[in-house]
């Protein structure tokens, strides 16, 4: 930055790209910076070229970007998450490679793969991306795809709002991506504690990128929470009492409530920090009455519920797959519901454990320490319930089950380190060390990541009509499990040895062996990512032999398995009347589940609209303009958003009508296919004979 702000371009000038840094100093750090920017640019060009060459622009726009179908929105969320995850995992590897080369001395400038400031940007973007743009979109995407189908609804309660939420999340992700090419990102970690991130100590655009990415995507997540909650309360099929909902719906309800109550805290703390930075306020500054402790306090009022927002959908997935793949009813349904809900409630009462070391009295720490341990109870109960579900079952070791087993064995270790950290007296020692880093990866990766990937594998055929290759799926899962062990177990040791988190350098040569092991693990994690992509590609290539038009490849028991695969836009030809928990399973048990509905009616679906797309574009422009102080663009995009909202509010919008005839035709075709197909037993589940039509006589669960 030249210091002068131009009215047209704000603080932007030609010196903001990593290429300028590269021209000034050529070293591994600037090469990596410029390389990352180039990957972004080339990736964008390659994407554009591909879309043009394949003539995909129009279908992309018509079938996806303007669609208000929750299933498609869900898939787009997951696609976004996978792209961001690729960046996050690569950043993780770069950080591990850096620390493996970062042994230094106190009187010598830091060495290693990247410069200290670059390292700080890496852990900040990595953390921000992984939490807000990988884990969140994964779970929100999965809920979007699955929840309405499990409830017996055709769509979310507010389909267009859903589109807007996706748009806002994508706009936030876009801002983090653009920071690779234009300017720097903040260096305060994913938590961005002031005063370090205040204007005095972090001038420049870095923290602002984080703030606007968070503020914009945060609004999206809040709206999503409302949408989920209303959908669950209002859009269930007749007979789908709350206590008949599959567990995944229950955990979605927990997530919805938690999003509604937790996200505003993040918006508030970020908005306050933004006011400090943009408008000369003093909420968190050192002088003039600011108090940085308030930031930590408000941030973690969001932050702790957030980690349970991340984990609960995974718990939902594990409930579904433990039952389906064991061919058994879920053990302890009521217990699991109570446990989920109590986790959701108690998780709002423990946030202080993130700053036991801020100087409050022992009494306060004791209260919050014990509250934290209490969460361990329902969590433990859930794990035992899933084990009881598998006990006396007939467990098929499919890819989701490999994830499930990895989760069991690793998550309890993460739980153990969580219990350790809940003790203030021990937390004084290991807080802010890599022990903590190991702990949260230990719950997030086996919990959230495995859970979501297991869910993707499980419901993939519903979305695309063909199964994923089981062998490659299992290999991917095993690599993620092995990669995790090698990457993060050493960090426990390093933390106990006293290595602070976020360390750009260290001086103790005893750390090195552990660093090497961790780097090897990070390579495995990258391999797992490639393996995942390869699974998608390979399954796509063999989509004919993997196709399951019958729609029930795993012999499942919840409603979504009663429809064809891929599931039609309207999901159900006629809304089911639910008689029992696990209604589809009960129907199968009673025999002849694929009976056609008595009559067909016209179906109303939300009309396509570019509303979400417009809001997303304008929100991105708003964020970018605020980051670079391009005030005219900020004002313009702000008014454009307002205008778009008003415009849509004033118009009468007709839904799209799917004529009964078309529904009937497609439904008949599906039922004829099922009637003609040979039902398979679970033994043939992984073979080409699995056409999604299971042998009902084998169904018992």
């Amino acid at each position, binding site marked *: 930055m030249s210091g002068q702000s131009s009215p047209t371009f704000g603080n932007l000038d030609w010196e903001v790209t990593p290429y300028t840094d590269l021209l000034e100093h050529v070293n591994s750090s600037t090469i990596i910076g410029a390389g990352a920017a180039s990957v972004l640019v080339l990736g964008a060009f390659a994407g554009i070229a591909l879309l043009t060459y394949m003539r995909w622009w129009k279908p992309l726009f018509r079938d996806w970007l303007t669609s208000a179908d929750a299933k498609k929105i869900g898939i787009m969320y997951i696609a976004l998450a996978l792209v961001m995850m690729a960046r996050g995992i690569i950043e993780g590897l770069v950080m591990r490679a850096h620390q493996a080369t970062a042994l*230094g001395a106190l*009187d010598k400038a*830091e060495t290693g793969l990247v410069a*200290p400031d670059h390292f*700080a940007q890496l852990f900040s973007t990595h953390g921000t991306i992984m939490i807000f743009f990988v884990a969140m979109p994964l779970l929100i995407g999965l809920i979007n795809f699955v929840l309405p189908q499990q409830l017996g609804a055709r769509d979310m309660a507010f389909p267009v709002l859903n589109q807007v939420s996706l748009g806002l999340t994508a706009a936030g992700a876009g801002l983090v991506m653009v920071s690779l090419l234009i300017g720097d990102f903040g260096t305060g970690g994913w938590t961005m504690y002031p005063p*370090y991130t205040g204007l005095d*100590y972090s001038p420049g655009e870095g923290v602002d990128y984080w703030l606007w990415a968070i503020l914009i995507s945060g609004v999206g997540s809040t709206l999503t929470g409302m949408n989920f909650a209303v959908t669950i309360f209002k859009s269930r099929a007749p007979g789908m009492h709350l206590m008949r909902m599959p567990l995944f719906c229950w955990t979605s309800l927990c997530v919805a409530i938690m999003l509604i109550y937790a996200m505003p805290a993040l918006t508030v703390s970020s908005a306050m920090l933004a006011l400090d930075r943009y408008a000369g306020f003093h909420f968190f500054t*050192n*002088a003039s009455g600011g108090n940085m*402790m308030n930031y930590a306090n408000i941030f973690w009022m969001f932050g702790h519920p957030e980690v349970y927002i991340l984990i609960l959908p995974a718990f939902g997935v594990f409930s579904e797959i433990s039952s389906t793949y064991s*061919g*058994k*009813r*879920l*053990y*302890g*349904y009521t*217990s699991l519901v109570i446990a989920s809900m109590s986790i959701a409630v108690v998780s709002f009462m423990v946030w202080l454990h993130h*700053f036991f*070391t801020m100087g409050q009295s*022992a009494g306060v*720490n*004791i209260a919050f*320490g*014990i509250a934290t*341990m209490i969460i361990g*109870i329902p969590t433990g109960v859930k*794990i*035992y319930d899933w*084990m*009881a579900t598998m*006990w*006396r079952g*007939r*467990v098929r*070791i499919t890819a989701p089950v490999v994830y499930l*087993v990895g989760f069991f064995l690793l998550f*309890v270790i993460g739980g*153990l380190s969580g*219990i350790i950290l809940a*003790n203030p*007296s021990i*937390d*004084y*020692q290991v*807080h802010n*060390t890599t022990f903590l880093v190991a702990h949260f990866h230990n719950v997030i990766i086996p919990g959230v990541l495995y859970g979501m990937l297991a869910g993707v594998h499980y419901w993939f055929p519903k979305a695309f009509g063909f199964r994923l290759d089981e062998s490659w799926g299992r290999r991917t899962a095993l690599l993620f499990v092995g990669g995790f*062990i090698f990457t993060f177990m*050493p960090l426990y*040791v390093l933390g106990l040895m*006293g290595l*602070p988190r976020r360390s*750009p*350098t260290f*001086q*103790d040569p*005893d750390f090195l062996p552990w660093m090497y092991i961790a780097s090897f693990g990070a390579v495995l994690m990258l391999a797992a990512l490639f393996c995942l992509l390869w699974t998608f590609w390979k399954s796509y290539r063999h989509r004919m032999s993997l196709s399951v038009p019958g729609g029930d490849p795993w012999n499942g028991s919840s409603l979504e398995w009663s429809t064809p695969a891929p599931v039609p836009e309207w999901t159900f030809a006629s809304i089911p009347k639910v008689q029992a928990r696990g209604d589809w399973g009960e129907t199968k048990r009673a025999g002849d589940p694929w009976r056609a509905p008595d009559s067909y009616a016209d179906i109303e679906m939300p009309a396509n609209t570019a509303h979400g797309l417009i809001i997303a574009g304008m929100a991105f422009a708003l964020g970018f303009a605020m980051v670079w102080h391009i005030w005219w663009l900020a004002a313009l995009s702000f008014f454009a958003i307002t205008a778009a909202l008003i415009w849509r509010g004033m118009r009468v919008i007709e839904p799209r009508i799917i004529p009964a005839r078309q529904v009937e035709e497609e439904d008949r075709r599906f039922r004829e296919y099922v009637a003609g197909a040979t039902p398979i037993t679970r*033994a043939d589940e992984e073979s080409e004979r699995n056409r999604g039509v299971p042998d009902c006589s084998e169904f*018992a*669960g």
Partner: protein
Amino acid sequence: MFLLAGMTAAIALAMAPASAHGVVEDSFLQPMGPVAAEQSKHLLRVIGITMIVILPVLIGVPLILWRYRYRKPRGAYSPEWEYSEKLEYALWGVPVLIVIVLAGWLWHSTAKLDPYQQLGPDPLQVQAIGLDWKWVFIYPEQGIATVDELAIPVGRPVQLMLTTDTVMQSMLIAPLTGQIYAMPGMSTQLNFSASRAGTAEGENTQFNGSGFGRQKFKVRALDPDEFDRWLDGPDSGLTLDEATYATLRRQSVLADAKSDLGLERSTGPLVMSLGARDVFDRVIGKYHRTGNGENAADAEAWGGIGLPAPAKQESGQ
């Protein structure tokens, strides 16, 4: 199982005394004082108790998987079994009991190891000011100040008051005691004592910029007479006055700060005599002055306020 073995091995390894360069301890698993000793004992206790709920999972899952696998099942198949009252009591009861036991220990150890609680009468008073990438230690009664070296006598309790004159930091001297945050305009404290002579590493654990990884200092626990000799020992000839302090406040690690001060550039500690006794209070007071803290008044703030200008620009003046 192999995970568990790995964990145990890892902890055992971490507990093994630091090898070749074993002079500087950096982990609370090799405690040098009662606080850290109690903390490491409590860690092992918590691990032990929690194992009661964890082992069944680590052992049970592989067993279930092997016994009930679809291809070659051994045990019975009860697909519609979904509830057992007795089992419910066990599933909820055992974790509840464990948490009650753990909570009792948590209460006990947290109250006992409260960092604000003095460890005995007449503690040695030391004040610490966190600056960017170094710590200033002030011994108000002895009239000396050091940078990045904290010497304490074995056996005598220490009361360390902390603040910073920059962003939030967190001081950890793992072999002696846990960490506590230090924040501008506020003071926090750590109470601890050393029970054996030796050298420990102290550090900041709260990221605060490029030099963060080098913000380490030595804590020397000395036998009492050696401590007295240390107090009388040679110093750098510098006095911690406002000018020296302003130079120390710049973003730099100790070695660079020493060369800024005209001393030989090295990692050796910097020992100074104390100009004014109330340096610590002045530094805290800077952030509590009324009026508009940004303008004229700042020039008078002791050593300055906000991010100091880097060395080069000043030498040009």
